[in-house]
């Protein structure tokens, strides 16, 4: 069950127009820049995939990664928690011009909705957002004297994630705070595509130290020296 793909271009080759795509990372940590850029390359070469819905905590920074996807005009909608960043012009311009949709989700609810999708839990109750405009139209209920909002799972067609170690059957670890949404998105997408810095044989990761078991990963590609989003943003790189 070798899930290895040799290039990032091949790894993202079957993402179609209109796909709902989860992209791991929080700010620059754990962002699969090479997979994102491969997707942008495909769009520039073929016009596809377009009308993508992207799920991420943020809405891109600078002129690389998700921000470059938005700038390129591939993104129809963002589902995220914090699109307003220090360097988020790409999203801001499109949003204020009415050219991109936004579903704003509290960060913990976003994480839990993604986890619920992976865990087969169609809905759950959370105290988060009760009584706020982000809960408008959602069912509410009292448990043990406290009010809660019902939230639905959030699934995706694809997840693009970034890990540290990986093996050919899809087991993965993550580097420090680069873990963030990556293991959750791996569970919640119909097809999960992972880039890892080190790709080894099965058994190369201690079974006790696997963070994402291979069952959640469909394709894995080695990117030995991955770019770091934050570094690219700080050095003003434009993709």
């Amino acid at each position: 069950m070798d899930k290895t793909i040799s290039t990032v271009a091949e790894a993202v080759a079957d993402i179609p127009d209109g796909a709902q795509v989860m992209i791991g990372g929080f700010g620059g940590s754990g962002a699969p820049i090479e997979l994102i850029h491969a997707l942008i390359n495909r769009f520039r070469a073929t016009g596809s995939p377009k009308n993508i819905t992207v799920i991420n905590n943020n809405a891109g920074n600078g002129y690389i990664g998700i921000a470059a996807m938005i700038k390129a005009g591939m993104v129809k909608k963002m589902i995220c928690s914090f699109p307003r960043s220090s360097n988020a012009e790409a999203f801001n311009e499109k949003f204020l011009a009415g050219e991109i949709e936004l579903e704003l989700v509290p960060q913990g609810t976003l994480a839990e909705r993604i986890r619920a999708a992976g865990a087969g839990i169609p809905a759950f109750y959370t105290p988060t957002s009760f009584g706020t405009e982000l809960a408008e139209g959602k069912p509410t209920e009292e448990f043990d004297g406290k009010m809660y909002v019902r939230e639905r799972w959030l699934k995706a067609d694809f997840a693009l994630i970034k890990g540290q170690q990986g093996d050919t059957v899809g087991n993965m670890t993550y580097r420090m705070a680069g873990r963030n949404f990556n293991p959750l998105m791996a569970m919640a997408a119909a097809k999960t595509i992972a880039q890892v810095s080190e790709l080894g044989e099965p058994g190369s990761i201690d079974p006790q130290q696997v963070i994402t078991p291979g069952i959640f990963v469909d394709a894995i590609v080695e990117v030995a020296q991955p770019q770091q989003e934050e570094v690219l943003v700080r050095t003003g790189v434009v993709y």
Partner: protein
Amino acid sequence: MSDFNIMEDKLSNAQIAWRAAQDIEDGSYVNLGIGFPEMIAKFQPEGRDVTYHTENGVLGFGKAPAEGEEDWDLINAGKKAITLNPGASFFHHADSFSMVRGGHLDLAVLGAYQVAQNGDLANWRVGSKGVPAVGGAMDLVHGAKRVAVVTDHVTKDGGPKLVKTCTFPLTGVGCVTRIYTSLAVIDIEGGKFILREKLPGLTMEALQAVTGATLHTDGDVLDLIVPEDL
């Protein structure tokens, strides 16, 4: 035809397990229920790469260790000692049942007291006496892409286990998609039993006589052929 004796000429559990094993696809993730279904792993066809999940939190386990070499922290859901294949992983129970409920398994195979033609399964208790115990059965019937059952076709008394409506307490509603019995292979589609294979010596009439609901056909009914020496 009349020389076929349902109680004597039926398949053994090993033969049923062998047949079920032939349908396990290369590259699939599979959970085999405690007991009889576990036997299926022994008959996994050559050249197929199958990853076994056990709900207590192991993916990618292998054969039982030699006696005396057991490590009792390395067990399956039946509390039997196991070994690990390369690429195995450990995880906690909530993650393990996320794999189950979340639709990540390709196949779950369970035993049965009764299966109804609409896919209802009863396999966890037969009445209200004794100590009830459910374990992971009610979870396993949901989420796997295919939920199959291995079972004798009839009870020890010769009564049907494939029925119109389950009379024993249910494990899950409309969940079973294929049944491997000691006499036949039957799919459940649209609330009906669809006969796919039956033992060559057995007539349709004889099979229907020991089945509690109508057997339908949809195309050819193939011979159910398994190795004799199991």
